[in-house]
């Protein structure tokens, strides 16, 4: 048995490109050996515990082109290395897409938000503690799930969409972006592609070792929010054990358009219930054309958890998710 070690950074190359081309070239050249670092909040734990051992880090936080919030013809574009604090406090985000500002402001703790980036929050890896401990589970390329068993500690895990792996999407901003119908801008040395936020995240049934569709050499560089959902009626709530520095047990992000008292369109998304943000299309369809009310909320909440398959210790997520959806609809 080899010895295990923890909590000391290994010797590792650090690249700090200051322009896009250089970063994309490095990402392409290094491939799997390169680890993209934004604020580093998801990175250093992995590396210090030596549970992931890339040969090099490519820190992209110094690339100005991928930073900041700017208005576009059709909405706004947010650079992927913009800090969560900057997003939460940005007047443009607050005034048009307050759903995202609120969600960004609920991530982790102020210290982490000050350095953590939007891209990092979206691309962060699963928080299942078995996986984080460095165990060779499915997500780590192994052939077993330690959490999905009668004895496994699976209180924080998935109630939907599990496929061997039962980890959930830990991001607070991801449900908000799906609700806002954002588009992810993904760049690589060979060009750029645009991916709807909803398709950016991937579940274990399709890819058990990655949480996004990013390929080797690709970098998420920006997120575009279309004006279509600007200034809709928004609702975001995150329920976690602690009020700071914790991951959601369940979160909800909703964008609802109301005209003359009736809901004309809605996008409702839950976090921490599945490996990807879970869009509740059945609920959206059911409330379209209805008056926003307590009664409506009560009527449709159960649809939100239709098909849920709780594990041994996360049955509570079912009523919690229904309650959060109710609150989102009630407003």
């Amino acid at each position, binding site marked *: 048995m080899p010895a295990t070690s923890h909590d000391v950074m290994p010797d590792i190359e650090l690249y700090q490109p200051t322009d896009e081309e250089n970063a994309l070239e490095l990402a392409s050249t290094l491939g799997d050996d390169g680890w993209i670092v934004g604020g580093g909040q998801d990175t250093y734990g992995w590396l210090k515990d030596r549970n992931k051992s890339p040969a090099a880090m490519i820190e992209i936080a110094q690339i100005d082109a991928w930073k900041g919030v700017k208005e576009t013809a059709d909405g706004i574009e947010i650079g992927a290395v913009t800090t969560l604090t900057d997003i939460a406090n940005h007047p443009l985000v607050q005034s048009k897409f307050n759903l995202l500002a609120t969600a960004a402001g609920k991530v982790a703790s102020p210290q982490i938000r000050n350095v953590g980036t939007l891209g990092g929050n979206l691309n962060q890896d699963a928080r299942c503690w078995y996986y984080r401990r460095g165990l*060779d589970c499915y997500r780590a390329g192994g052939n*077993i799930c*330690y959490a999905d*068993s009668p004895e496994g500690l699976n209180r924080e895990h998935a109630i939907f969409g599990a496929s061997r792996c039962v980890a959930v999407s830990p991001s607070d901003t991801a449900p908000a972006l799906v609700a806002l119908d954002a588009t992810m801008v993904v760049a690589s040395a060979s060009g750029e592609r645009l991916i709807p936020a909803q398709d950016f995240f*991937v579940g274990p049934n399709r*890819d058990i070792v990655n949480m996004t569709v990013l390929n080797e050499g690709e970098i998420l560089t920006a997120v575009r929010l279309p004006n279509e959902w600007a200034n809709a009626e928004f609702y975001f709530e995150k329920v976690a054990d602690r009020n700071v520095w914790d991951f959601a047990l369940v979160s909800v992000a909703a964008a609802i358009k109301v005209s003359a008292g009736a809901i004309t369109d809605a996008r409702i998304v839950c976090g921490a219930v599945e490996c990807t943000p879970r869009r509740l299309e059945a609920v959206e369809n059911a409330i379209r054309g209805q008056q926003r009310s307590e009664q409506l909320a009560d009527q449709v909440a159960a649809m939100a958890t239709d098909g849920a398959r709780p594990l041994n210790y996360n049955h509570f997520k079912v009523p919690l998710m229904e309650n959060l959806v109710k609150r989102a609809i009630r407003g």
Partner: protein
Amino acid sequence: MGEIVRYKRDVWGEEVILGVSWDLLWVVAVAVLVLLAAHAIIMAALANKKMEKASSEGRRVLRHETIDRLFHWVMAASILVLIATGTAPILGLRIAWLNIHWIAGLLLTFVVVFHIIRSLFWQDFKSMILGPKDFGEPFDSSKKPGKYTFEQKGMHWAVTVVVLAVIVTGVLLFLQIDTPFWDRTNSMPEDQLGLMFLLHGLSTLALIALAATHIYFALRPEKLFYTRSMVSGWISEDEMTANHDTSLWSPKEAD
């Protein structure tokens, strides 16, 4: 060339088998392609010396009953689906493969069990027995086989062994995932689990090789009439007498 077996650390940090090394998939693919290509070239070179092809016209005899043909094609389809879904994530295709895989696996298991029972009680089991005598057949052009040629018997039994291996290991692995019928447990020790994955992987590789070989021969011109018989059930009397010893196989006439 990579290793044959992949290892991982179990929960205690000890090295256990993870499964087969999928580098072997390429090794198998290349080896099969090379061998089959070599066979094709040699056959082409020998083609002139070959006898005239037997005519498919005339009286027809029944080679495969409908139920057996149906079995064959269901099995073939399920195996191809299993191979495709099983190798998709290895090839990096992001598809939701697992449910299709185990449903196809269940189907395969079901039809194989059906076939075993049928072959033991309702079919001429002896016709498929591969005895010591059969091994002389390829070297003696005067010897003709009964219903099945030496190669066919060989293929059948090789497929039997390999399919039973993928089924047994597959069913054990099936028990390790959540399904509508049960919730998974971690009751199988990690080293045993790894061994199951290894055997499943090795038998899959063998099955891929066999399937490729089988398809190749099924498509060869001189064997095509067998393939036709697996579709329509019959071969011509000419084809029968040219290739089989009628004292050993006397099929009834086809409808």
